[in-house]
């Protein structure tokens, strides 16, 4: 079984939840509830980054999401036409972001968590820019239900 669908929204933070809930519903039959949480969070973080950092909060720009449902994996691509993100931003994002000292109140992070969360929640994350288009490709593998 392979099926795919493309969805798009205007670059408006108010519209992100609509898209996230639609994609979560699409994954319902393939992924556990915990993995649906992982996908929904990653997608929201990815789109927030595009709108906030790529388009600098400007509305009226396009954000596309392509969802591929396969027997063994869910592939989600977030496509935008903003200036590309520097490659090292994704490369250096990791769970180390959360290795903070909880006794140092000022040092507890308030932002810069999105890409780290995406990498922690998805099995593969790749970013490609060509021409005026950027694609963040995220893969979540389907864990077969145990008998």
């Amino acid at each position, binding site marked *: 079984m392979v099926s795919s669908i493309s969805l798009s929204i205007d670059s408006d*933070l*108010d519209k*992100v*939840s609509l898209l*996230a809930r639609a994609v979560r519903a699409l994954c319902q039959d393939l992924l556990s*509830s*915990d993995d649906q*949480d992982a996908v*929904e*969070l990653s997608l*929201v*973080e990815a789109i*927030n980054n595009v*709108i*906030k950092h790529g388009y600098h909060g400007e509305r009226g720009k396009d954000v596309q999401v392509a969802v591929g449902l396969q027997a063994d994996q869910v592939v989600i691509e977030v496509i935008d036409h903003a200036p590309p993100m520097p490659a090292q931003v994704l490369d250096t994002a990791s769970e180390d972001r*959360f*290795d*903070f000292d*909880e006794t140092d*109140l*000022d040092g*507890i*992070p*308030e*932002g810069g*968590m*999105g890409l780290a*969360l995406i990498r*922690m*929640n998805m099995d593969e994350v790749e970013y490609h820019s060509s021409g005026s288009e950027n694609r963040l490709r995220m893969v979540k593998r389907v864990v077969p239900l145990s008998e």
Partner: protein
Amino acid sequence: MLSTDLRDNVLVVRVEEKRIDASKAPAFKDEMTRCIDAGQNQIVLDMSQVDFIDSSGLGALVSCLKRLGPRGSLAVAGATGAVSRLFTLTRMDRVFALHPNVDTAVEQLSA
């Protein structure tokens, strides 16, 4: 988006939204900041109605904690599912005291 109730000198702030995401985080932070600036420093945030939070929402919570300063307490009650999962993933469960419900959180803070 928030409703408040004072119990045993602890301010119980209930989030009346299902999602605290980047579109809601600024208003959430503003409303919480008003409670803090009004002098409340023992706060229980009831998140039992919330079923999704992203890093912007979590960042707003951290910002409130900083505003409250070291003398205040901000406890979280009723976080389940994707909400409690985000606290664990980001290790913010070390920063915020998580309670199963408002009653136990209020009991702890008013003790």
